[in-house]
C-alpha cells in the first residue's frame, strides 16, 4: 500500500511541497518541480502587468491541472489583507485550499499569531480550507487546529534563512498533539534539514529558497525528493534508541 497523506479530503503521495519564487525563470521552476516529484506548489497572487503583455505566465509552465496550486498570502501583515488576497485567489483559480500567512515583521518575516488565528477563523467561516504558516509554539498550533485549520505549518527557521530545524523539540510536540497534517514550512537549507523534519514525524515539508537558490536547483530538487523519502522511511522504521556508550556490532564470542 502506498504511503499517502490527506489534506482537507485530498490525498497526496509526494511529501514535498515547493514554492515557485526566486527561480531564474519559470522554465527552471518547472524543471525543479518535476525533479522534486511534487504534487503541490505554492503560488502568490499579484497584480497583472498591464504594460508588458509578453511577460511569461506561471500557468503556462506549471499547469494547474498537473499541480495543485496552493495560493499564499505572502506579504500580508493583517487578517484583512490576507482574506482579500485569498478571495481573489479563489476566484482566479476556483480553489479553496489555501496557505495562510500573516506576517508581523519585515526583518524576520515572523508570523503574527494573533492576526493569524483571527484570519484563519474568518477564512474557515467563508468555506476556505486553510493550511496555516505559524510559529513553532505548540499552544498556538493547537489553537489553529481548534479553529479548524486543515494543516499546521510551523517554521523550522525564518523564511529564506536556510538555517534548518532550530527547535526540533517543539516540532515534535506539535506533531505529537496534532490530528491534522503537520508540515515544516520555511527554514530548510539543505537535504539533511528536510530529512530531520520528516524524522520528527512531520507529514510533509514545504520549501522554496533551499531549491531556488542552490547552485544547481534541479539537482537540489532531486536531493530534497530523496531526503523527504529517506526521512519518512526512517520515521516509519523507528530509529534505534540513543545510548551513551559504545555497543559492539560484531559478536564478542569466538574472538581469537
Amino acid at each position, binding site marked *: 500500500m502506498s504511503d499517502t497523506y490527506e489534506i482537507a479530503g485530498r490525498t497526496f503521495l509526494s511529501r514535498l511541497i515547493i514554492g515557485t519564487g526566486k527561480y531564474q525563470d519559470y522554465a527552471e521552476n518547472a524543471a525543479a518541480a518535476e525533479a522534486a516529484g511534487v504534487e503541490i506548489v505554492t503560488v502568490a497572487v499579484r497584480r497583472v502587468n*498591464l504594460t508588458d503583455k509578453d511577460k511569461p505566465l506561471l500557468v503556462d509552465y506549471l499547469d494547474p491541472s498537473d499541480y495543485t496550486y496552493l495560493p499564499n498570502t505572502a506579504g500580508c501583515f493583517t487578517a484583512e489583507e490576507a482574506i482579500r488576497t485569498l478571495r481573489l485567489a479563489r476566484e482566479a483559480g476556483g480553489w479553496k485550499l489555501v496557505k495562510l500567512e500573516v506576517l508581523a515583521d519585515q526583518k524576520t518575516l515572523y508570523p503574527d499569531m494573533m492576526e493569524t488565528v483571527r484570519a484563519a477563523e474568518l477564512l474557515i467561516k467563508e468555506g476556505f480550507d486553510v493550511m496555516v504558516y505559524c510559529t513553532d509554539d505548540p499552544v498556538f498550533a493547537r489553537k489553529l487546529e481548534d479553529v479548524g485549520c486543515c494543516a499546521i505549518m510551523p517554521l523550522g527557521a525564518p523564511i529564506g534563512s536556510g538555517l534548518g530545524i532550530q527547535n526540533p523539540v517543539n516540532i515534535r510536540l506539535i506533531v505529537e498533539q496534532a490530528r491534522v497534517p503537520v508540515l515544516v514550512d520555511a527554514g530548510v537549507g539543505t537535504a539533511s534539514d528536510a530529512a530531520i523534519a520528516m524524522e520528527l514525524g512531520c507529514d510533509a515539508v514545504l520549501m522554496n529558497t533551499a531549491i531556488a537558490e542552490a547552485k544547481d536547483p534541479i539537482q537540489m530538487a532531486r536531493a530534497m525528493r530523496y531526503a523527504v523519502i529517506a526521512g519518512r522511511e526512517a520515521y516509519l522504521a523507528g530509529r534505534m534508541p540513543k545510548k551513551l556508550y559504545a555497543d559492539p556490532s560484531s559478536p564478542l564470542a569466538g574472538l581469537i
Partner: protein
Amino acid sequence: MKITLNGETHDLEGPLTVGDLLDQFDLKPTKIAVERNLEIVPKSAFDSEELHEGDRLEVVQFVGGG
C-alpha cells in the same frame, strides 16, 4: 470616465463592462480575478457588470511565490 486599474488612473470611453475593460487590455478572463471597490466580481458577471466613474479595480493573477 475615470477609473483606477491596479493603482493607475485610466480615462476610458463609457459605457463599459468589466469584460470590455479586460478586452481593451488584452487580458484573458480565465487566468485572472477581478475586484471592484473591494468586492470580487465573479467571472460569470464580467459581461453584465457596468463600470462607473471612480471605480477602483484590481486585476490579479498567479505568479511565482513561496
